């Protein structure tokens, strides 16, 4: 379980990792904790799964990649199999089963539009899906602050 100190560390590290020689010492100084304790708390939260990623977050567009949200509608008994086909691609970063129609939602970050279409075509073929709905972002109002 997380305690107050863990929450403070998360708060401090949300978007401002100190770019100094001894970053954990700087974090520790702010919350009256030595750097070894700071590091071991972060390690524990990564281990627990509370922290999913700890490092840089890249802007895929600026790196020349094309992102896209996609959705397919799959009968209950085929969800696991279709999800497994979708998950095979490194370019698929998120894949969720949701209530509603369509029910399987995933994101693709591809190096080109051609590659993206290739991925969709392969998913359709391998998972025997007729239609993939695509939703590319037109305007970003907010992108993950901490979640």
């Amino acid at each position, binding site marked *: 379980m997380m305690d107050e100190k863990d929450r403070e560390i998360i708060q401090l590290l949300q978007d401002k990792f100190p770019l100094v020689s*001894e970053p954990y010492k700087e974090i520790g100084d702010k919350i009256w904790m030595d750097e070894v304790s700071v590091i071991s708390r972060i390690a524990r939260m990564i281990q627990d*799964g509370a922290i999913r990623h700890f490092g840089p977050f890249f802007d895929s567009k600026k790196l020349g990649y094309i992102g896209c949200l996609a959705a397919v509608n799959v009968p209950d008994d085929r969800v696991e199999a279709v999800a497994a086909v979708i998950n095979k691609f490194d370019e698929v970063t998120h894949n969720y089963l949701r209530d509603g129609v369509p029910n399987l939602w995933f994101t693709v970050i591809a190096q080109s539009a051609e590659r993206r279409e290739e991925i969709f075509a392969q998913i359709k073929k391998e998972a025997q899906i007729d239609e993939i709905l695509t*939703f590319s972002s037109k305007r970003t109002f907010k992108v993950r602050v901490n979640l």
Partner: protein
Amino acid sequence: MDSKTKKVLSELQDGFKLETKPFTRIAKELNTTEEEVIDIIKDSLNSGIVRRIGLAVRPEKIGFEENALIAWQVSQDKIEEVGEDLAKINEISHCYERDCPPNWPYNLFTMVHTKSAQDLERLIEDIKNKHNLSNYKVYRTKKEFKKTSMRYFND
């Protein structure tokens, strides 16, 4: 992007290794100085290639039991106002206007995380009433099949 920048970012893409002096170690490996490694990272932040450096948590592990994708139908003349307003809500982590397939009316996509189903209902009611939105779809998260960070650099 120059090759040194690429090497530094590639070294960091899977996350920090939890060492007391991360930049000294990277500098040694790339045969450069700690100052240069830090400068490269700062430049990447300034140019926007790196959006931020820090951590991402799993909402469900820190008490957000209800997670949902909610797509709203918002008219073009209101989308900027509504999008910017929804972006201010704590429980909303992502908010995008999206290009949608034909016959798909819900053009404003939000990811919503709340502590309970009740809180989610309450938040939806508030948004509906404030912006006069009657047409929307709630896609509650049932199962996570994959959630990773993209690896942009090949080792």
